[in-house]
């Protein structure tokens, strides 16, 4: 990489320099160094299109949704429902009422775990997750198992970080009610074979939830082609505002599932004795929703759709390959997660420099990186590391930034090994 000349680093796929101007924070400096933001797996930065849309909405159009018959409220409701349509288009369902807004993936998975299980999971039933899930797709199922006397089964992973599909098939049985796996692992970057997972689960009558927190901003996807039953996402990981996320759910299931959070706007009729519920998605959207954040999410979807998800995917793959190559040249650095099918996430470990120290040292260079268990402790245990450092790339990152990371890592190793 040191000998790659700069022209090689300019991708023909995207005009990254131009794109970077859409993101105000990218011109910031950290400890006097230009910001190199590589924690996109945790949360992504926001383009002007999103920031300004929220500002405009809050300063000129803001009103509550669904409940009022006056202008501000009608307009807000219109924008709110337009975003629902945009999400439906992005995820690939023709029925926008299959999209439920929540405050994020965590809330979405909790909604499904609790509501689905109250209706469909009983004593002795089984739930399958994998060994490379985020805590958000682990803990809710543990709790459901405790509450309902069900059993949690875990798909093991290979040393390269891929789900072992033969083992998965062995876990499936007529007791399996739901399989919940992520599309892309936030800890390793593995892209899971979700189409195949779904097919196998459906063959024995189980339902499937795909945690799409790491995939919606990076892959082109279609829930109807994947044929999954639930798909979850977070707005803040796809260039939208914090505080908003959602859920695709197959209508037949949403209709049969009991409500989760209850209160205003999700009811048909309330008396002190008895309450009847509204139809989906309203049934699952109790209370005043994150209105401005939904509007901002709409702007984020427009923004990434304009760039094109195909291009984003291709370019980020280029970054992944480049970053893998340059990091491999840091003496002693081990990449954790080497699946054949990977998204632009590189988790790594070094025996001499603890991930936490890596984060502090990189921060001094303006490089913002995540170190820790990435809310995936069972994955860390599986790979025998207490934690990893993680660089997660977005289409606004550049190869030069990965060069800088590799150089700074070499310096850190030298400093620690003396």
């Amino acid at each position, binding site marked *: 990489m040191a000998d790659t000349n700069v022209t090689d680093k300019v991708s023909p796929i995207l005009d990254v320099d131009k794109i970077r101007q859409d993101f105000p924070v990218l011109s910031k400096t950290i*400890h006097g160094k230009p910001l190199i933001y590589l924690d996109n797996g945790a949360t992504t930065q926001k383009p002007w299109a999103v920031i300004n849309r929220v500002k405009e909405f809050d300063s000129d159009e803001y009103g509550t949704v669904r409940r009022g018959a006056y202008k501000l409220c009608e307009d807000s409701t219109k924008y709110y429902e337009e975003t629902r349509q945009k999400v439906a288009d992005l995820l690939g369902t023709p029925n926008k009422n299959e999209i439920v807004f929540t405050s994020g993936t965590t809330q979405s998975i909790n909604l499904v775990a609790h509501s689905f299980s109250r209706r469909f999971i009983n004593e002795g039933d089984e739930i399958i997750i994998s060994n490379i899930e985020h805590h958000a797709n682990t803990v809710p199922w543990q709790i459901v198992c405790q509450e309902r006397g069900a059993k949690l089964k875990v798909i093991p992973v290979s040393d390269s970080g891929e789900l072992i599909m033969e083992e998965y098939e062995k876990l499936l049985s007529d007791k399996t009610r739901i399989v919940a796996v992520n599309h892309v692992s936030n800890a390793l970057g593995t892209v899971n074979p979700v189409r195949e997972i779904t097919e196998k689960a459906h063959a024995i009558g189980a339902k499937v939830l795909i945690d799409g927190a790491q995939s919606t901003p990076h892959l082109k996807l279609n829930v109807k082609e994947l044929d999954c039953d639930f798909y979850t996402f977070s707005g803040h990981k796809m260039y939208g505002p914090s505080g908003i996320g959602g859920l695709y759910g197959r209508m037949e299931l949403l209709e049969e599932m009991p409500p989760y959070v209850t209160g205003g706007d999700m009811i048909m009729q309330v008396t002190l004795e008895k309450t009847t519920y509204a139809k989906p998605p309203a049934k699952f959207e109790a209370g005043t929703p994150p209105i401005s954040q939904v509007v901002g999410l709409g702007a984020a979807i427009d923004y990434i759709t304009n760039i094109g998800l195909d291009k984003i995917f291709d370019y980020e793959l280029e970054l992944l390959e480049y970053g893998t190559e340059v990091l491999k040249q840091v003496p002693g650095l081990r990449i954790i997660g080497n699946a054949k099918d990977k998204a632009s996430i590189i988790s790594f470990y070094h025996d*001499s*420099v*603890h*991930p*936490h*120290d890596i984060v*502090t*040292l990189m921060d*001094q*260079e303006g490089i913002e990186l995540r*170190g*820790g*268990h990435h809310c995936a402790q069972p994955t*860390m245990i599986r790979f025998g590391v*207490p*934690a990893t450092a993680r660089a997660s790339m977005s289409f606004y990152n550049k190869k030069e930034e990965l060069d800088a990371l590799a150089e700074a890592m070499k*310096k850190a190793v030298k*400093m*620690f*090994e*003396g």
Partner: protein
Amino acid sequence: MAYSDELYQQVIIEHNKKPRNFFDMEDSTHNCHGYNPLCGDDYEIYLKIGDDGIIQAVSFNGSGCAISKASASLMTTFLIGKSVEESRTVFEQFHKMVLGEFDPDKSENVLGKLKLFKGVQNFPSRIKCASLCWHTMVGAVDKNETVSTE
């Protein structure tokens, strides 16, 4: 890397590489498990305290970042021969120093070479790394089983 030199001083790096008293003590009188859920720093601290209240031996084992490991290593060398009472005073001054509430260069103190960790105050997310072993040591003295810093 000028700013971070404040944190990663040579002595700290050296103690991280070659931690002192780094073993499980079989005949300890007090021990405690310390855990920082945020970064996964995970140590056991062992003390042998005589009937006279004097700390005769200190050791530790486990894993964690350079700051937590060097801090534990330096703590073990520092506490041997001190009384339990003294160790509490050291803990308090150390804790206040890393929080930036106490400047050992301006007030009388018993910190000695532990002053090395003064720079930690400028790294808010690393304060717990430096203080974990100290919390755990006090936990051991107080006969707690586990200490966790959140």
